[in-house]
């Protein structure tokens, strides 16, 4: 059903780069809001959730008329996963789709989840490190919705959320970063602990272990109480600049000290891409990210550019892969993955 509307290629905002794209894939601002006097979704039964969805949608759909509306309980589970794989929906719709809804903008850079963990949760994203634009645009949505529905708010705790740890501004700034240099130079634990002290969380995007350098990480702010939005934006930008700086320095460091090791690793990646007939999911992620580094550091000539290497990461995920190459068991999927990946290499060098 959704295949005809959303082709399995990546949405443009995620596939066209942006400032500091070599380190920062995307920046997002996420607001959480609830309706005054109404129990949070976790205390509503199926009937109540569906009734509440109907009245809530009725009140905000005019504001969001440029968005497409999906009731998540009529979406198949692979459709929901498809949206989550491409950052076009909150992860909560995987676990609790009943009575929830997803508003998605045409370019997929903006979504609003309704009756997920909270009544409303909405996100605006930008490619690269431009968190300021993402935040300003998210705030416009917030201020438009404010005229349509009464938000749950107290002067002491700010905007009230189902997780009391998120009350206050109930605003989270989030980044997807690729930091192989930091990890290769054993700087990860240091960085994570340092960020934690300033109220920022660093964790892997997928269920991979922390030890390999082939990962994309999520960095997000965790302070919502006692800090206002502009302060949060300022400190998040500062924190992000520091990560970018650290990563570039680490890359320069390893390229001067361990160039042949890095080149070896990445050229082996090219070898796998060219010749492997079976590529498992995790191997696929690691491979995509090794090539991403190779492209950024001009190690692999024009075999693959950074945008294609980034895309490789996303299309290697289960639902995207199945949409592009057909359904099948795990072995079929791994075989299809190898074939799809091979098609990304430029021919003739």
């Amino acid at each position, binding site marked *: 059903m959704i295949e005809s509307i959303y082709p399995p290629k990546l949405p443009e905002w995620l596939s066209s780069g942006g400032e500091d794209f070599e380190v920062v894939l995307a920046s997002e601002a996420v607001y959480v809001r609830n309706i005054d006097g109404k129990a949070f979704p976790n205390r509503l039964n199926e009937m109540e959730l569906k009734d509440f969805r109907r009245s809530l949608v009725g*009140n905000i759909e005019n504001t969001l008329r440029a968005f497409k509306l999906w009731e998540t309980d009529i979406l198949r589970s692979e459709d929901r996963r498809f949206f989550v794989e491409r950052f076009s929906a909150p992860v909560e719709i995987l676990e609790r789709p009943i009575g929830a809804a997803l508003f998605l903008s045409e370019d997929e850079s903006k979504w609003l989840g309704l009756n997920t963990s909270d009544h409303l949760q909405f996100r605006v994203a930008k490619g690269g490190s431009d968190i300021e634009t993402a935040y300003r645009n998210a705030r416009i949505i917030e201020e438009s919705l404010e005229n349509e529905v009464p938000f749950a708010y107290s002067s002491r705790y*700010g905007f009230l959320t189902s997780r009391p740890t998120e009350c206050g*501004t109930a605003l989270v700034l989030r980044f997807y970063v690729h930091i192989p240099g930091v990890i290769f130079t054993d700087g990860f634990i240091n960085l994570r602990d340092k960020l934690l002290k300033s109220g920022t969380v660093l964790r892997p995007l997928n269920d991979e272990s922390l030890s390999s350098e082939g990962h994309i990480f999520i960095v997000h702010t965790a*302070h919502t109480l*006692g800090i206002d939005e502009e302060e949060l934006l300022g400190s998040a930008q500062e924190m992000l600049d520091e990560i970018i700086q650290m990563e570039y320095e680490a890359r320069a460091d390893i390229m001067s000290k361990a160039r042949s090791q890095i080149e070896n690793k990445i050229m082996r990646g090219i070898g796998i891409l060219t010749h492997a007939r079976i590529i498992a999911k995790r191997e696929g992620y690691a491979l995509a990210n090794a090539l991403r580094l190779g492209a950024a550091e001009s190690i692999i000539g024009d075999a693959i550019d950074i945008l294609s290497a980034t895309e490789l990461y996303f299309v290697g995920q289960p639902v995207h892969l199945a949409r592009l190459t057909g359904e099948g068991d795990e072995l079929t999927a791994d075989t299809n993955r190898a074939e799809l990946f091979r098609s990304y290499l430029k021919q003739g060098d």
Partner: protein
Amino acid sequence: MEYCSKCQKRPGEVKCVIVVKGERIKCCLCHECARSAGFSEQIKFNRKPKSPGIRFIAEKRDVFCPNCKLGFSQFLQTGLFGCPSCYNAFEKFIGDILKGIHSATYHKGRGPGKEGLQDLTHLKWKLSEAVFAEDFERAAQLRDEIFRLKKDSN
């Protein structure tokens, strides 16, 4: 020696009685588990020096949100509040949690819109709920109220 009935690792040194729906449940916790279960400064401990190994006896009643009926013990398991009123109902207990995570326990920054506008939004929301519930008598009242408010603000 009795072990902590929660973690089964450390010695149980805090004897607790939790009253859930009128039923008294006895347990013996270590200091760490007792603290994380909310038996902290807010709870009065009665010293009982006679029983060796067990230093305190505490009794705690589960606290419930009057609006959504969520019990605080349930919140401790899920980390989720049930409704906006939970913030008031559990105010005594969440200070420590918030202080551990944030730099302050007071909101800083903007609230929702201008006051007059908020009244209007509330009324509009109530109107849509009344229409949804097909309570047209109430809907008509609300419609008139909104009309008056709009006229006043012009």
